């Protein structure tokens, strides 16, 4: 992909295609970024991913705390209900939610994509709760006797110990937001608002079809730009990430 992204058009169509393009045509990147407003798409995606991540981590931490570190009647039954919601396919909820969001005028904005994330999804709650349960309850009890409120215990005792699990949730959320195609496809109509997922597809299809074939170097350049931040993120968080997958896998 990177190789193709640096080729001149004739080089792509030469057979056999050279592996290392010479001379490298960096201009493909600039062109890919300017044919469609890619910089804007990029900012849109970053903003969206950050807000969704904040919402998810914040809400699922609070909820997971309520489901694991506080004893109250009916807790486990309610938690089971929470887990049961994972069984319902997204398609069932998609249509009524679209209708509601369009009635209150949220369509063509990021609100329908961001706001629900502030209300804790079952999957993240499950993952965090699982981790919270491994922290000894004596620590909370000691803090309680010292007169700490539940929120203080969460902030001072539980969160510092649960950082790895929270990092996993944050990572999965960022990746999911970066990758989300269907959500923006449904809710966003204004091209200025597009995230890169839709932008990339737009780059592929907006050019007239006879010109389409000439787009490969630019298209590959844009794909490389889209993938790059995720690869970078992965390299810095590799261990957390792989741990996260095996935790969710085994416990699931």
């Amino acid at each position: 992909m990177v190789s193709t992204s640096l080729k001149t058009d004739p080089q792509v169509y030469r057979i056999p295609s050279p592996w290392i393009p010479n001379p490298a045509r960096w201009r493909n990147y600039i062109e890919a970024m300017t044919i469609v407003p890619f910089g804007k798409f990029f900012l849109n995606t970053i903003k969206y991913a950050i807000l969704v991540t904040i919402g998810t981590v914040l809400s699922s931490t609070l909820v997971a705390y309520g489901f694991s570190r506080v004893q109250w009647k009916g807790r486990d039954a309610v938690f089971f209900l929470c887990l049961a919601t994972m069984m319902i396919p997204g398609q069932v909820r998609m249509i009524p939610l679209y209708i509601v969001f369009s009635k209150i005028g949220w369509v063509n904005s990021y609100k329908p994509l961001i706001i629900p994330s502030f209300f804790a999804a079952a999957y993240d709650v499950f993952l965090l709760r699982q981790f919270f349960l491994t922290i000894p309850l004596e620590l909370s009890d000691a803090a309680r006797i010292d007169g700490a409120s539940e929120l203080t215990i969460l902030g001072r005792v539980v969160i510092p110990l649960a950082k790895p699990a929270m990092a996993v949730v944050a990572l999965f959320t960022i990746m999911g937001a970066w990758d989300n195609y269907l959500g923006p496809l449904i809710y966003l109509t204004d091209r200025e608002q597009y995230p890169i997922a839709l932008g990339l597809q737009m780059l592929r299809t907006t050019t007239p079809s006879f010109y389409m074939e000439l787009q490969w170097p630019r298209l590959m350049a844009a794909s490389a730009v889209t993938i790059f931040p995720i690869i970078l993120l992965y390299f810095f968080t590799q261990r957390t990430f792989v741990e996260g997958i095996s935790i969710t896998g085994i416990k699931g």
Partner: protein
Amino acid sequence: MSTARSIHFTGALFGSRGSVRRREIKRQITGITFISPWIVGFVCFTIYPIAASLYYGFTRYDVVRPPRFIGLDNYQKILLDDRIFRIVLSNTLYFVVFGLPAAIVTAFLVANLLNTDVRGRSLYRTIFFIPSIVPAVSSAMVWLFIYNTEYGLISSMLSLMGLPAIPWLSSAALAKPSLIIIQCWAQGSAIVIFLAALQDVPRELYEAAVIDGASTPQRFRHITIPMCTPSIFFITITGLIGTFQSFTMPYLLTGGGPNNATELYAVYLYRNAFQYFKMGYASALAWILFIVVVFFSIITFRSSNRWVYYAGK
């Protein structure tokens, strides 16, 4: 248990039973306050949509005019008259029956390879994992290029050997297998889960088997596979649900073509809802999908008693 004890302890510390009762009520309130974001989300984004969707399934609804109740017409039409529904359902089942096992077998074999002591093992693991972190849209673009008949990676390699190009995505016979190949390629998280399971297999079992004179294939067949069945089961269930709902890849790569060969359930549902604005019809489709998924999950769960081995039992 320890909390129960400590509550008893603090109760005793502060004297009366009344304060214990008050403490209990306070805990009840605290707990519910903490989970309140979920409660709000559950009501707004789960209970309401489910109820609404169930209702819309019995209506004709084009968003512009209010929904009109038509009873079971949508369901009747889908099950009896909709030719594309049948194609779409059989396409999706094709992916479940052929694509999913292919993906699981690939992931399992790769995980076994990665579990052997080779140099640069972590590098290999990274290489196999990267496809599953790459955003679906970007990998769709890359695969479009790889599969391109005229200039794509595979075609140019084939032409080097003097072979004709393969119409990966444009032939109705090949489009489905081509998508399955992509699915097998992006199995990073399954590989990680299998790796974790493989590392949990007790060494003694293999040692004992070696003493008994078991060959490598025999050890694989009688130790590795049975010990990994819980994670195979997990991947099967999640994969089942995922396959029935897969959208982005087929939508971007083939758009359902050629001749509806890769039109999948989720894509067809999306078209009905957001391209033809048949919200009632699409809601009915969603419920049928739900029933199909539940049906297949139950079959898998039922069968799991026969083939899933839990060391604990």
